[in-house]
């Protein structure tokens, strides 16, 4: 009796565990199959973009180039970006930082993102150099911000722009925290993540981003790494360029020349 009891119990346990494993396997297979099907269609990404007109994102790979020695800190870029993209007050998709550096200390400021220019500054140390550094989303190749998005609202396009789908964004703010450059914010009206798009509505029509269009000193440049002879490509290809926070391995596509050690 006791033998049978133990035996029966044992076989039932095995049976149930086996069946449940099978069931679990079936569910995983179905979900995996569905995921494969969707990733399979992404392989055919050469298909024309919905609503994209005659723009082919396979033909471009955009990059941004900043020469910090040319920036005069006028803030025209910040004002143009604000107007072009309807950026809410107190938030910035691009901004300018001023570095006042001495041997013993350094001072960084960005009053209202540099939008109204920069006032004279008094520092409590002997300043030996000072310069402006325009900042913008780095549109990283290995971007942490899209990796942490739990709903697939943040993504990188084939032509290299990191964008946010405001319809899918749930406003959790993970991407805002993940970005090491402080390029993202939660829009106060829509409560979704917002950031620089490299003016995707302009660059896909053959124009430059608004900040580059208005820059009076060509401190900001925008170009196509897939285009032979492109000025930005030439610099990235042949000159010595730097990136911000390279140790984080985010592979920024915003390149700098003449950066100082103080700039992060």
């Amino acid at each position, binding site marked *: 009796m006791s033998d049978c009891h133990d035996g029966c119990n044992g076989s039932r346990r095995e049976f149930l565990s086996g069946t449940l494993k099978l069931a679990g396997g079936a569910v995983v297979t179905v979900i995996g199959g569905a995921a494969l099907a969707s990733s399979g269609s992404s392989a055919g990404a050469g298909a024309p973009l919905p609503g994209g007109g005659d723009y082919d994102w396979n033909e471009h790979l955009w990059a941004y180039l900043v020469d910090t020695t040319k920036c005069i800190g006028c803030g025209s870029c910040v004002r143009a970006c604000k107007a072009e993209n309807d950026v809410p007050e107190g938030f910035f998709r691009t901004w300018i930082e001023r570095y006042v550096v001495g041997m013993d200390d350094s001072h960084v400021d960005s009053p209202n993102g540099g939008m109204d220019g920069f006032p004279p500054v008094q520092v409590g140390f002997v300043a030996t150099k000072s310069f402006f550094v325009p900042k913008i989303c780095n549109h990283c190749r290995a971007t942490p911000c899209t990796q942490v998005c739990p709903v697939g609202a943040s993504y990188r396009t084939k032509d290299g722009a990191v964008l946010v789908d405001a319809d899918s964004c749930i406003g959790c703010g993970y991407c805002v925290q993940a970005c090491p450059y402080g390029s993202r914010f939660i829009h106060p009206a829509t409560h979704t993540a917002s950031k620089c798009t490299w003016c995707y509505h*302009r660059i896909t029509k053959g124009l430059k981003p608004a900040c580059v269009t208005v820059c009076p000193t060509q401190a900001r440049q925008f170009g196509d790494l897939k285009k032979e002879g492109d000025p930005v490509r030439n610099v990235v290809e042949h000159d010595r360029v730097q990136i911000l926070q390279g140790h984080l391995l985010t592979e920024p596509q915003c390149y700098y020349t003449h950066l100082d050690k103080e700039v992060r």
Partner: protein
Amino acid sequence: MEHGKHVFRIVILVAVILAVVVLGRGLLIPKTYGLYGRFRGANVGEQMNIRPVLHAGAAACADCHGDQSTKRSAGAHKNVSCEICHAPLGAHVKADGTVVKPPIDRSFTLCARCHRKVAGRPARFPQVDLDQHVNGPVEGKVCLQCHDPHSPKP
């Protein structure tokens, strides 16, 4: 045969789970999700047309304002886009063709943003030390009384 009932129950359970998963995916995942990657594919096209182009660039201004444009291109302000001082073209000529007179900023602040001598500007860029300019401090005085913004001379 004594296990038949159990098998039936588990098959039903699995079928229900599958139905919920398939139905849930259908309802919750947007149509074009996964078309190009792990995002809603239709959004790329939406981003391209998310808003009208506002800044058209200096060349577009020259279509109507040739004289000022030629003058500007010959002077020291040749790289200063019209839209920096005159606001974006999109605010001047609306999408339907109506023309709105743009505000013309003649303020000291506008000139000072670029030319006031402050820490940070490259030394080779023309800057004005307000305390020493002309006959003493000039803050608040209108620069345009002496300087022509379309073809400025020092």
